[in-house]
């Protein structure tokens, strides 16, 4: 795989057109510019141009105290805000040398998995609307509302939860939460199974998705992708299993893999991961220990000792990492965000070359990249 596949190298020939998708385009939530050089309907070269909502987060974070950064980490990727909180708090806990309480660990796993479910639901929804299946999109968002309500009951917010704290979490569970959650999740399980059956049996859908945008395992590794696109190729790489954090090593779950590596498998991985997350949440609700959900003295004004940490967790989209360098003051010296969507976005243009214009929507949406996190 050469680098010429990531960029448009020459001006279009008379038989070719340069087609610009974006920045305002209904392809994905978030602006980006995808330049395609097409001949007829076939894509000859593709180039992805990003940065349209580059906020300069890394610079802003260097000017904020550690606790001020916490709510801002939500905004890195609004669909995985709990994961982002969590990876930041885990990094800070390493720097500060504290350990979250047992109950807080379980609560974080609970919110992370809920977050994964809602992100996958919206991801699948976006994807189905991109292959023209509007009804399934609406069903997915409808089911997502239930999960958003569950998250809202814990954190008080629909999207940017700001829930984890250094060494704990912000709130305990509301009373009667377990029954409410089990009811909603039970319904969701049935609905997801029926949607899965529908998507696996719809012949037009299968025609659109089977064998499209195929990544092999070696290709995916070479492109540096992680998360569902990698697991769809059959590689069992999940940081929850590879590098167990919080209480994931006490919980029973499978790493979902598929073998084909095409668009269909990526969506299938997400669908099955929703079911697996529901299973995890059921265990978490059963095993939830009593005790404090936060430290007795919350470290609000923090001056960690000079040092550095690279913490990473399994985001809904893959490997989310943060590299924090402390110089002993109350603000980080350097704050680097390694987003999973950045890696998948980079892997997009090589996948598009040789496919049809109509597949662009399907492939791009099946990678489920989050523009906000790509641009940061």
């Amino acid at each position, binding site marked *: *795989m050469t680098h010429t596949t990531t960029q448009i190298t020459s001006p279009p020939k008379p038989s070719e057109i340069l087609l610009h998708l974006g920045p305002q385009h209904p392809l994905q939530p978030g602006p980006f510019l995808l330049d395609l050089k097409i001949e007829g309907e076939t894509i000859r070269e593709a180039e992805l141009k990003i*940065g349209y909502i580059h906020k300069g987060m*890394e610079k802003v974070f260097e000017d904020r105290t550690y606790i001020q950064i916490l709510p801002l980490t939500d905004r890195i990727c609004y669909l995985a805000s709990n994961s982002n909180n969590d990876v930041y708090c885990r990094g800070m806990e390493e720097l500060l040398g504290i350990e979250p309480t047992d109950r807080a660990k379980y609560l974080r796993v609970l919110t992370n998995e809920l977050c994964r479910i809602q992100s996958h639901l919206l991801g699948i929804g976006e994807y189905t609307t991109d292959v023209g299946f509007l009804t399934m999109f609406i069903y997915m968002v409808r089911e997502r509302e239930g999960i958003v309500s569950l998250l809202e009951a814990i954190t008080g917010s629909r999207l940017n939860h700001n829930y984890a704290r250094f060494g704990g979490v912000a709130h305990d569970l509301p009373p009667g939460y377990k029954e409410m959650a089990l009811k909603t999740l039970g319904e969701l399980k049935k609905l997801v199974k029926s949607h899965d059956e529908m998507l696996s049996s719809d012949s037009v859908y299968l025609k659109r998705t089977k064998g499209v945008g195929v990544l092999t395992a070696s290709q995916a590794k070479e*492109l540096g992708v*992680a998360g569902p696109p990698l697991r769809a190729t059959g590689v069992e790489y999940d940081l929850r299993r590879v590098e167990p954090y919080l209480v994931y090593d006490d919980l029973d779950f499978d790493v979902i893999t598929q073998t084909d590596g095409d668009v269909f498998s990526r969506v299938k991985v997400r669908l099955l991961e929703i079911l697996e997350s529901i299973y995890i949440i059921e265990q978490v609700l059963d095993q939830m220990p009593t005790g404090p959900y936060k430290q007795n003295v919350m470290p609000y004004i923090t001056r960690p000792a000079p040092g550095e940490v690279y913490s990473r967790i399994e985001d809904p989209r893959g490997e989310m*990492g943060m590299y924090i360098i402390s110089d002993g003051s109350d603000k980080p010296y350097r704050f*680097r965000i*390694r987003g999973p969507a950045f890696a998948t976005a*980079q*892997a997009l243009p090589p996948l598009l070359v040789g496919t049809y214009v109509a597949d662009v929507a399907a492939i791009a949406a099946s990678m489920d990249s989050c523009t906000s996190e790509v641009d940061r």
Partner: protein
Amino acid sequence: MVDENADNEMVDGTRDIIEPPKIDRTIMVALSETFKDGVFDVDVPLPNRAVARIDPGRVKPIMQFLLDNGFDHLSCISGVDHPPDKMEVVYHVTSYSGPLVIALKASIPRDDPKIDSLCDIYWNANWYERETYELFGIIFNDCPYLKVLLLPEDMEGEWPLRKDYAGYPNPT
């Protein structure tokens, strides 16, 4: 593209019979033994994290060595500015088959920040290098497509993430 990867897969298929390389801390010992004067200050602060400083001139052979030993995933490339005279490029390298993350730091002079590109070794280094270039002004030799990625093109040359950047906070 397709043919090339078909070949890769076949190579992988035959390679599976050979014993897979070990993804653990012993790699650090091997690394410092192989590159005696290229790798120094090796430290393992946490069970799954290893840190080392490397000679910026030998970054390519070191990375090639790591890739051959199973560290097939370049996680991240970050720039760090240390005014007045130093800049650091930090490579986080890990593997798809183990939890160990190796952070390799290369110090380069701030007035002439240049280092070799890794695009030949890790395909996905390209965007990370472009990002580091536009934010810090670190030039990656032989990077095939070194131009701005996130910033508008007229902001090239401002290097906003350097510590002495004047445009922050935004004056408008």
